[in-house]
């Protein structure tokens, strides 16, 4: 019996990734980048896509993602995306922001952009921590989570409560799609990729604002071994932020 020739079923990365990233072992953000670019490729919209990238570890992706990019100020990506989309309505415009960028510095921007029904897609990479600065508390740090600015764990008495931005966005009129995925398991990666695809399909249909929140591992900022990221994520972020497509409650 002769062995059949191997048939490629999954490339390591799309050609839109031009080189290596410098992010930590076990980081979830490069996985999110890969599925995002795969979706742009599969939808055939690479040559009209414009990304607006905020500030965090993922900011370095600007150097390796082969789509047009505006690297913008911390928190302001939805506003910049608004300006781009208004003057280039045929372009597919997305943002890539972390939780510090979108929920701390830029909460106002994302909420107002959503409420305007701006026809753009915002992508939140949420790991519940400022990874880039070395593990500090963000607006999405879950109760009990240890960070360098909540050493004994986030305590509502002292640090207040985390903000579920996807639920806030889903409560607004003008929003066409909100979903939350996670890249901590193979199934989660595949489901998250389908969410991204749906969000872009809504933008292509001109339906209005879309948000895909992606829970990503940050073992460095969580102070856990690289391999423990998925387990930590399921016990912390995923417990606080349930996965799936969110019901839209703000329809006029």
């Amino acid at each position, binding site marked *: 019996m002769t062995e059949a020739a*191997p048939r490629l079923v999954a*490339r*390591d990365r799309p050609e839109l990734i031009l080189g290596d990233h410098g*992010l930590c072992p076990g980081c979830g953000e490069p996985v999110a980048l890969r599925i995002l670019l795969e979706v742009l490729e599969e939808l055939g919209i690479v040559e009209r896509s414009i990304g607006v990238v905020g500030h965090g570890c993922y900011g370095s992706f600007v150097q390796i993602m082969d789509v047009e990019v505006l690297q913008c100020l911390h928190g302001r990506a939805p506003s910049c995306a608004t300006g781009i989309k208004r003057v280039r309505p045929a372009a597919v415009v997305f943002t890539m922001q972390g939780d510090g960028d979108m929920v701390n510095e830029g909460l106002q921007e994302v909420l107002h952009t959503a409420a305007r029904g701006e026809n753009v897609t915002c992508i939140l990479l949420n790991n519940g921590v400022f990874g880039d600065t070395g593990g500090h508390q963000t607006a999405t740090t879950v109760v009990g989570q240890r960070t360098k600015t909540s050493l004994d764990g986030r305590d509502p008495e002292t640090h207040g409560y985390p903000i579920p931005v996807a639920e806030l966005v889903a409560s607004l009129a003008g929003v066409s799609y909100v979903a939350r995925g996670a890249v901590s398991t193979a199934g989660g990666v595949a489901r998250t990729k389908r969410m991204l695809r749906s969000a872009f399909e809504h933008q292509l249909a001109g339906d209005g604002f879309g948000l895909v929140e992606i829970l990503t591992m940050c073992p460095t900022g969580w102070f856990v071994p*690289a*391999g423990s990221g998925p387990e930590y994520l399921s016990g912390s972020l995923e417990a606080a932020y349930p996965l799936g497509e969110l019901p839209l409650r703000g329809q006029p």
Partner: protein
Amino acid sequence: MSRGTVSIDVERCKGCDLCVQACPPKVLEMSTEVNGMGYRFPVLHDGCTGCTACQLVCPDYVFQVYRFDAAPGEEDASGTPSATPPGEGRPSATPPGEGRSSGTAPGGRPPGRAPASGG
């Protein structure tokens, strides 16, 4: 024999271990030696199903996944090269633990890639 195989770009690996945990047939294992960056990396044992779970979770784009085409009539339902990970709604073409017995690596290693460190 295995129904699938992977190529592993060991020099790009940062040793996070996510693939080992994600592998349904449990055919990946971290090496004892290290790559040029000083990281341990996964090695493949017999029994790969080509399910793509490792490729899906890998943050460092280390894996390419291949399947050995089934004999006529045995082709999987999807018939497409798109990834069909376990745990999905769609039936997996290669349920965990049902890989064919004979080893594929390194003989199944596709050309032009770094060695898929065979078990």
